[in-house]
């Protein structure tokens, strides 16, 4: 029961942080809000038994993403222009989408229900056979590296492609041709 209480409080804090990120117009503050949000998400993952995900999120989500955003802000400037028009259409779109998603949750299995379909299919097999088939006590590792090894290989292909893309955009021909100066209004 304590776990559920902690979960509820943490999710409430996540909601507050996200709303603060929407309200702020200083991009540095927004980025720090995003870092706090990722860190809170990592704590939620620990509470929900996903320790591997938690430390990946804490290292990659909080660390690398935030540093990348800060570096970008250092290059492009930290202040956002205030929008000239009222955000009525985006609010309407968001409200309609949110209502549709809430309707979709109404016949989902309840939180932490052991009889939910997601727990019935291949997972009992992995939990039962993993020690003798792979010899790794951590089932997340054995699925990631062994049962679903090809998915992880595909993930590496995606990361490699993204790295090549970043290098192609920024790294190789940098500063050979100086950017044309545009007057900023």
């Amino acid at each position, binding site marked *: 029961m304590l776990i559920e209480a902690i979960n509820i409080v943490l999710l409430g804090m996540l909601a507050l942080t996200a709303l603060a990120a929407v309200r702020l117009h200083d991009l540095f503050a927004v980025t720090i809000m995003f870092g706090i949000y990722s860190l809170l998400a990592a704590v939620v993952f620990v509470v929900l038994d996903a320790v591997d995900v938690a430390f990946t999120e804490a290292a990659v989500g909080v660390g690398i993403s935030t540093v990348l955003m800060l570096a970008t802000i250092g290059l492009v400037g930290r202040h956002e222009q205030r929008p000239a028009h009222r955000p009525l259409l*985006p609010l309407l779109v968001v409200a309609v989408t949110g209502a549709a998603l809430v309707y979709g949750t109404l016949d989902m299995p309840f939180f932490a229900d052991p009889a939910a379909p997601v727990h019935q299919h291949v997972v009992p097999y992995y939990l039962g056979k993993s020690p003798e088939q792979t010899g790794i006590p951590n089932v997340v590792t054995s699925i990631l590296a062994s049962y679903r090894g090809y998915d992880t290989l595909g993930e590496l292909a995606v990361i490699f492609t993204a790295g090549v893309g970043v290098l192609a955009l920024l790294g190789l021909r940098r500063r050979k041709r100086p*950017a044309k100066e*545009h007057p900023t209004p």
Partner: protein
Amino acid sequence: MNVAGLYNYWIVILLMMTGFYVVISSGNLVKKIIGLNLFQASVFILYISMGKVMNGAVPILREDVTTYSNPLPHVLILTAIVVGVATTALGLALVVRIREAYGSVEEDDIHRQDESL
């Protein structure tokens, strides 16, 4: 029971819609990418919430434990976190490149220079 059982999903939908709102209402490209990341992190929480089992333990096998939480969503989300950072890096590199070419990262400025809106 109804509200407590669906609370996680509803908060996640609120977080998702917050990120979505930032993406579609903000004119600043960096803030759009931060909104995309907010959306993405909330999807992670949705998956991990579905993997939780009542009184379950961390899925690291031990002698004295019988109930484990579901490890499959954890694996999916581990992959998704790393891919998410890769796409964020690519998006931010595009923003820096746009800033070099246009001298601005505000959508309105860029449209005005292109006379595309």
